[in-house]
């Protein structure tokens, strides 16, 4: 009889289900995974070190590129850390705008997750529907910041500019004309807030559509129920946060427990799972999308009623307006100093965390009083989740690895940093 040995397998880094550049060394006993050893760092750009050589504001754009499907939430953590060290507070309207876009970003992220998760497990259609909706939210990103993804919209002291009164319309082209064009522009007749409200109203039905496709789907349940179950104790030990922790039944959400921005004013529920498996985490994220859409609507209602400044008037941190610069020497000097040298942050250290769509995204900032951070450390939720891959995968079949990577909602921009 021949000797039976474990078989070592290379999963990725070029594999569609690896969500980017994950190299997973799997030790297999037949179809069963004995050991999973993720090799990460293939997308390592040393963001934290780059930030040390740049004035504070220059690094906001890098934050978008960390978790590149929940851009503004990353910015929020970084910007909040700077604000804490400077001891400044953005105006109320900016806080509401941030809350609204954080929730829009959560929908954006979860749509990406549900699309790719379903695709990994063999359901093509969900991906197409999810990306249709994502397109609308990216347009909202573009309307406020000028870019579809890497917005750099949050700034220390507020947001870059107020919401536009006119939502840009889709232009006519050989591919977009007639009825199609009219349908696409139906929501875009008014302001950005009108557009987002129409989107949020419509979105509840869209979530129901995804549920029709997946929730009672036999194949979906066979692939997710009982897969990658994590007990609440283990989830805490392994550093899980966000839906990964709530899927295991731990009711913990920074938006409720340590509210920031305007979450104290928001009316929302935290969905919690019971079994801690892939299916529960799916249900948690589905419900989060509904809650987010409802919060977007709450923010819209407030923002309609309350115009006001979206950036603090502190020229040491935020630039003066163009008009002021035209006839005020002082304003011109401030502008020049701010854009050549930046601002100095008083000596100290802080840790600011936000509830990003994937979990707790934290920014640990040490300042030595200079115009550049002394050390920035970014705590990415996916990093802790992926490090638990071995524990979650052990004893499962090879095909379940795809389900696990998908349920962890892995994005390499934030893990490798």
């Amino acid at each position, binding site marked *: 009889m021949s000797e039976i040995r474990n078989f070592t397998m290379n999963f990725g880094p070029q594999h569609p289900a690896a969500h980017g550049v994950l190299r997973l060394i799997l030790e297999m006993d037949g179809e069963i995974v004995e050991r999973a050893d993720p090799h*990460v*760092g293939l997308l*390592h750009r*040393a963001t*934290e*070190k*780059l930030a*040390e*050589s*740049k*004035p504070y504001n*220059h690094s906001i754009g890098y934050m978008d590129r960390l978790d590149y499907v929940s851009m503004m939430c990353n910015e929020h953590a970084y910007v909040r850390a700077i604000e*804490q*060290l400077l*001891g400044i507070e953005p105006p109320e309207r900016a806080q509401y705008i941030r809350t609204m876009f954080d929730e829009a970003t959560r929908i954006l992220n979860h749509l990406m997750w549900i699309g790719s998760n379903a695709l990994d497990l063999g359901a093509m259609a969900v991906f197409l529907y999810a990306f249709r909706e994502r397109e609308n939210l990216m347009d909202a990103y573009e309307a406020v910041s000028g870019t579809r993804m890497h917005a750099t919209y949050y700034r220390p002291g507020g947001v870059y500019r107020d919401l536009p009164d006119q939502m840009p319309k889709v232009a006519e082209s050989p591919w977009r004309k007639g009825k199609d064009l009219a349908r696409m522009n139906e929501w875009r007749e008014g302001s950005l807030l009108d557009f987002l409200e129409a989107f949020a109203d419509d979105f509840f039905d869209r979530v129901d559509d995804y549920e029709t496709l997946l929730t009672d789907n036999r194949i979906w349940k066979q692939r997710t129920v009982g897969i990658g179950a994590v007990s609440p104790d283990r989830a*805490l*030990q*392994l*550093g899980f*946060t966000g839906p990964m922790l709530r899927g295991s039944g*731990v009711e*913990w959400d920074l938006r409720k*427990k*340590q509210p920031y921005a305007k979450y104290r004013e928001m009316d929302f529920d935290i969905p919690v799972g019971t079994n801690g498996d892939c299916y529960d985490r799916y249900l948690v994220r589905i419900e989060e999308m509904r809650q987010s859409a409802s919060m977007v609507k709450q923010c819209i209602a407030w923002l309609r009623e309350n115009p006001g400044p979206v950036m603090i008037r502190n020229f*040491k941190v935020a630039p003066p307006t163009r008009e002021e610069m035209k006839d005020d020497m002082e304003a011109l000097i401030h502008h020049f100093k701010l854009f*050549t*040298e*930046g601002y*100095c942050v*008083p*000596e*100290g*250290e*802080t*840790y600011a*965390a936000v509830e990003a769509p994937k979990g*707790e995204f*934290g920014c*640990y900032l*040490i300042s*030595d*009083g*200079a*115009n*550049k951070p*002394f*050390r920035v*450390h970014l*705590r990415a939720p996916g*990093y*802790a989740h*992926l*490090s*638990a891959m071995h524990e979650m995968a052990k004893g499962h079949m090879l095909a379940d690895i795809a389900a696990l990577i998908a349920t962890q909602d892995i994005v390499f921009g934030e893990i*490798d*940093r």
Partner: protein
Amino acid sequence: MSNFSERNQSLVQALKHVLGERIVSMVEHRGQLALEISHEHWLDAAWLLRDEPDLAFEQLTDLCGVDYLGFGDDEWETAEATSHGFSRAADALGPGRFSWDERPEATDIPNRFAAVVHLLSLRHNRRLRLRCFAPDDDLPVIPSLIEVWNSVNWYEREAFDLFGIVFEGHPDLRRLMTDYGFIGHPFRKDFPLIGNVTVRYDEDKGRVIYEPVEIEPRVTVARVVRRDSRYVDEKLEGTDR
């Protein structure tokens, strides 16, 4: 040690009571409590922080390495004018402004490397920051916390990879972020931002080759420390939180 806000009083009391002599220092900044613990007590303090019901820090959210080389240095003399006027340009090599050959000599500074940990207690809904300095700069060694909080596994691997801090007792201390066979610890302050090798595919040799970097440091904005009177006053008045 008395300057703590109302919110943190109970935590401060519990920490003093449980950890006692193990605390080297305890400071509050912007409402956040930071504790320094010596490396001898690092591990047993961690056990207490997790298991004592008054503290109950069930989760370790984050660990990172810090290299304190060059803390507070600026590249541009701005404080006072000299006999030949203000300095006109940056005249020191701060982060990102030196290449491999020009890298600053790491002189002996006390407490160069530290590991900083962020803990979270879900039961009491509070956070705590811990710091542990490595006693030896040449071979920084800190005990590993992996038995206490399993989540520290990759964080310690990363700190080892990027800063060269050795976590004693870690079962699998391999490099994590950098390339296979990488030399050096890239996040140390004396490691150039541009790196030291580039990788490319060589047509003739038919394989990937490593070469010395060709690019030059090009950080153009100088690092400046300005003592802003508003913040200085704040500190003097003790309203610093």
